[in-house]
Each structure stands twice: as structure tokens, then as C-alpha cells.
């Protein structure tokens, strides 16, 4: 029983992290139909930004959240204006967008390598290793914080999408960009905003990851791969699906240790990804997106 509680708690904490990592990827895909391969690079940039703020000015990572959100939002806007805007829309733009954003990722990696060298860094706060007893086991305070952010973020996002004019415009553009142009919505602006919002979410994921893991400029590729799995499971483009899918992936990975060698547990996620893509291309609960 204690083992079960232990594993369940691990799964919930991990789900929070996975969800945070995947929201940005899902949002951008849902609206722009672009797979943001630079996602991992933005996560890495968010981690470094958090680290600089903490080491240089002693700003606690959770207090740095707004700063990181604004900075990575701006990074996203720049990336959109300079690069993504020029891509052809529609299915023909698929491969081009993958490659373009992949190139952007390589550049981001190189820039942070030049700025920070390849050394491993970590953020150590007073609560980095603190934990609270819970049901006979211990729960990391920091992981609880990450979980809280993972729960609050989609709620804020939903509020934004439902209650504000911009949010409603984003949803409208996601459904049909052409008719939005007809009724006078500035689709380009909405695309730019959405891309910025998506990268802001990735930046947050990077910041939070930096409080848990050590990182270097290559950081983010594992995170990108996990985000893919989550977003595909949840149906590309469904924010609530992402949350649920993160939970499913985390449960499967964590409980897999009961039957599989630990080394292979992360392969389970990738195998699931392939099966879901092939069998239910719309994700476990999403709309059909194939063809």
C-alpha cells in the first residue's frame, strides 16, 4: 500500500511537470498548425534565464515567473516576426516549419553555449531538497510548487481564451483563419500573440525544470520529446487533453517500474506515442487531425 501511495505521488508530481512542458507546444499547434521544434530550445533558454536571475540578483525562481513569462513571450514574438511568418501555410508548410524551427533551436543552443559555456548548472534554493511528510511518505516542496503551476496555468489560459477579446479571437482563428480575416480580425497579430504565448509557456517550463534538474545548453531535447508524447496523446491542439495526457503518460512511466527494468520505462512513452499516432491520430480524446 505504501508502495502504491509512493508511486501515485511520484506520478502526480511527474504529470505536473509533463503538463507544464507540453502546454506551449499544444497551444501553438492548435492555433497555427505549426510543430514548434524550437520548443526544447525555449525551455533551455527559460532555464538559463531563471538561473541568471537567481545567481545574479537572487530572485527566487517562483518570483521570477512573471519576468520569465514576459521575456520568453517577447522571444516568441521575435521568432514569429522574423521567421515563422514567412512560412507557407497549410500542409505544404509542414516540413518547412519543422526544419526552420529546428534550425532556430540549433542557433539557440549555440548562443547559450557561447554565453554560458557547456558546464552543468543548477539552481539551489533553500527549499530545493525540502520535503513535507504526507501519508507516511515524503513529498518535495518544490515539486508541489511545480504541480501548483501546472494546475493554475491551464485555468488562466482558459480564462484568457474565454473571457478576453484577444482570447476569443485566438479561438476563432484556430477554427477558421480565413473567415476571421473576412470579419476584420488581424490574423497575423493573433498568430504572433499565440506564438508568443506558447513560447512563454515553454519558458515557464524551463524555469521550473531548472529548479529540479541540472542543465546545460543541450537541455531541452528530452523535454521536447516528452512534450511530443503528451501533445500527441492528448490530441494535438487540445489544452485540457494535454493535462490529461500528461497524467496518463506519467502514470504509465512510473508504474512501469513494477514490471520493466528502470532503464526501459522511458521507452514506454515513445512506444505509446507511435501506437497512438497510428491507431488514434486524433489523440486519445482529441479531434481528428489526420489528412
Amino acid at each position, binding site marked *: 500500500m505504501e508502495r502504491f501511495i509512493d508511486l501515485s505521488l511520484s506520478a502526480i508530481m511527474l504529470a505536473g511537470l509533463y503538463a507544464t512542458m507540453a502546454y506551449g507546444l499544444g497551444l501553438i499547434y492548435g492555433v497555427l498548425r505549426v510543430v514548434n521544434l524550437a520548443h526544447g530550445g525555449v525551455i533551455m533558454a527559460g532555464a538559463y534565464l531563471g538561473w541568471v536571475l537567481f545567481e545574479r540578483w537572487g530572485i527566487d525562481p517562483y518570483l521570477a515567473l512573471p519576468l520569465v513569462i514576459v521575456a520568453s513571450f517577447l522571444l516568441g514574438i521575435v521568432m514569429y516576426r522574423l521567421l515563422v511568418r514567412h512560412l507557407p501555410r497549410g500542409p505544404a508548410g509542414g516540413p518547412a516549419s519543422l526544419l526552420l524551427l529546428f534550425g532556430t533551436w540549433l*542557433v539557440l*543552443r549555440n548562443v547559450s553555449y557561447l554565453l554560458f559555456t557547456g558546464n552543468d548548472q543548477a539552481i539551489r534554493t533553500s527549499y530545493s531538497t525540502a520535503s513535507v511528510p504526507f501519508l507516511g511518505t515524503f513529498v518535495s516542496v518544490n515539486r508541489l510548487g511545480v504541480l501548483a503551476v501546472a494546475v493554475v496555468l491551464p485555468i488562466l489560459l482558459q480564462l484568457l481564451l474565454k473571457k478576453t477579446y484577444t482570447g476569443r479571437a485566438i479561438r476563432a482563428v484556430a477554427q477558421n483563419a480565413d473567415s476571421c480575416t473576412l470579419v476584420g480580425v488581424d490574423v497575423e497579430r493573433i498568430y504572433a500573440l499565440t506564438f508568443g504565448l506558447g513560447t512563454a509557456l515553454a519558458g515557464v517550463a524551463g524555469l521550473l525544470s531548472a529548479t529540479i534538474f541540472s542543465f546545460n545548453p543541450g537541455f531541452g531535447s528530452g523535454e521536447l520529446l516528452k512534450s511530443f508524447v503528451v501533445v*500527441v496523446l492528448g490530441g494535438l491542439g487540445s489544452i485540457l487533453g494535454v493535462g490529461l495526457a500528461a497524467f496518463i503518460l506519467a502514470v504509465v512511466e512510473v508504474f512501469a517500474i513494477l514490471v520493466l527494468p528502470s532503464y526501459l520505462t522511458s521507452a514506454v512513452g515513445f512506444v505509446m506515442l507511435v501506437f497512438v499516432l497510428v491507431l488514434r491520430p486524433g489523440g486519445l480524446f482529441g479531434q481528428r487531425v489526420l489528412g
Partner: protein
Amino acid sequence: MSVSTPDLVPPRVAAGFAAGVVLLAVAPWALDLSPYSHNLVTLAFLLISGAVAWNWMGGFLGQISFGHAALFGLGGFVSARLLLSGPVPAPLAWLVGGLVAGVFSLGAHPALRLRGPYFSIATIGLGEAVRLIFTYWEDFTGGASGLSLPIDPDMKHQLYWWGLGLAAIVVAVSWLMRHSTFGLQLLAIKADVDAAGDVGVSATFYQDLVFVLSGAVVGVSGGLYASYFSFIEPNDMFGFDRSIAFVLMTVIGGVGTILGPVLGAIVFVLLRQYLLASYPDLYLGLYGALLILIILFEPLGMAGLLRRLGHLLRRRRVPAAAAGGTP
């Protein structure tokens, strides 16, 4: 759909191709290449074969694979295992490695239903799963510590011509693919799978065929690679970086063209040798920047640039006559 397979390859093309191959085949003696240059060109041939084969999928079919390292690694490890198991002639081992990789790529058949980004994401997932499983599979790959082949300097020297042969065959196949009904069918599938089906092109069959061919060639080049390096290790052979290298080489050279992947592979080898030694800090970013520039300004890569240059020169030389070129 009135164009059929040309009965004969245009003599000019055939002659040029043959001249190129012969030139390269005699080069080690004619130019008295240093062992280092000799090996460098061998490596370039292996990468050329891989890139051209990747291009059949990524360029001709428009299915961008981020998982070709799985096929490369499989070919490499199957060959290496065979070579270690007893007195198997190396070419046979490479061939078997290629066949296994080809058959294995058929296993990805269900993924071929997916188009565009979905296919790419599926290949990323497959590639990672394969890497993890093969790194764990100690008995086959030697696990994380990999496999060592006996050192054989003569074999390494000969690999130049084996590599050249493979690259020549693969480039020729590329040309034939492009200039036949088969190539047209692939183009039709690339443009619109459903429409291609409507006019009687069996999309599934052709996609499978191309995937198997591509996998087999990449597998063979993996086998040659194993013999070249005498040591292979799953994290490197199956790594995401290797999958990415196929993409980079082809896209920088010119995706969907015949000579693009060749150019891309050459640039890849040269950049790695020269740039890396002098500016190691910049090479990743440079690839990234090249990729961005190519996508934004010249989707056909270096091959596209050459083509433009060619048009420009020809227009100058023959002001009007060029318009009605021979078919």
C-alpha cells in the same frame, strides 16, 4: 501521365556520370592521396549514400524522417555481429545488414498512413524507442559499451571503392527514380496522397517500396560505417544526432533533388573537418543558421543555388535558343 520511362539514359548524362565515377575510382593512385584524405573521401561516400537514400523518403515522397538512425544502427550492428560471428565476407555482412534494416522499415508501415508533421513525430518516437531498446539489449549490441571489430587496415583502405560503388549505385537509382513513371508517381503521392490514389497510383505500395529501399541503403551504409570505424556503440549509432545529420545534409544540399544530398554530405564532412578544428564553438549554430536561410530563401538548397547560377550563365551565353531544350 503520358510520359513513360525513357528507353535509354541520355548518353550525355551517362557519359558524365561514368566519367565522374572513374575519376574518383582512380583518384587514390592518380593524386597520390594521403591516407587521411583517402579516409575522408571514404567517409564522404558513406554519408552521401545515406543522405541520398534519406532523400528518397524526405525529398521524393515528402515524408521527413527524424528516425533514420534506427535503420543505420540496425544495419551497422547486424553487420558487426555477423563479422564477429565467424569468417563471413564483409560485403555479405553489409548486405545482410541492409536487408534486415529494409525489412525492419516495413515494420513502420502503419506509420506511413501519417503525413507531414505526424509522420515526423512518429519517426522521432520510433527512433528514440529503438535507441533505448537496443542500448539495453546487451546480447545483440553489447549494450552501452558497444562492439569492437578486429582492426583491418587493408579493409579500411578498400572501403573507399566499396563506398564509391554504393554511392554511385544510389545516385544512379536516384536519377532513374526521378526520370521514370515511378518518379512521377512518387511526385503525385507527395503532392496529394488521396488524389494519387484516385488516379490509380497505389500510394501504400509505392511508399512501402521507397521506405524499404531507403532503409536498406541506409542499413548497408551503417554496415560499411561499422567496418570503417571498427567500433560502434548504440548511443552513437542510434542517436538522435545521427538522424538529424541525415536531415541536415539533405536539406542544406537540396531536398528532393538528385545532386543536393551529395553536395550536402560533402559540405557536412568538410565543415566538420575544417570548421570544427578551427571554430568548434560555432558549428552547431552555423548549421542552424544555414538551415534557416535555406528554408526562407532557397528551399532547394545548394542544388537550387547551382541551378539558378546555371540558368543565369546559360541565358548569357545563348540568349534565346535555350528555350526549347531536349526532353
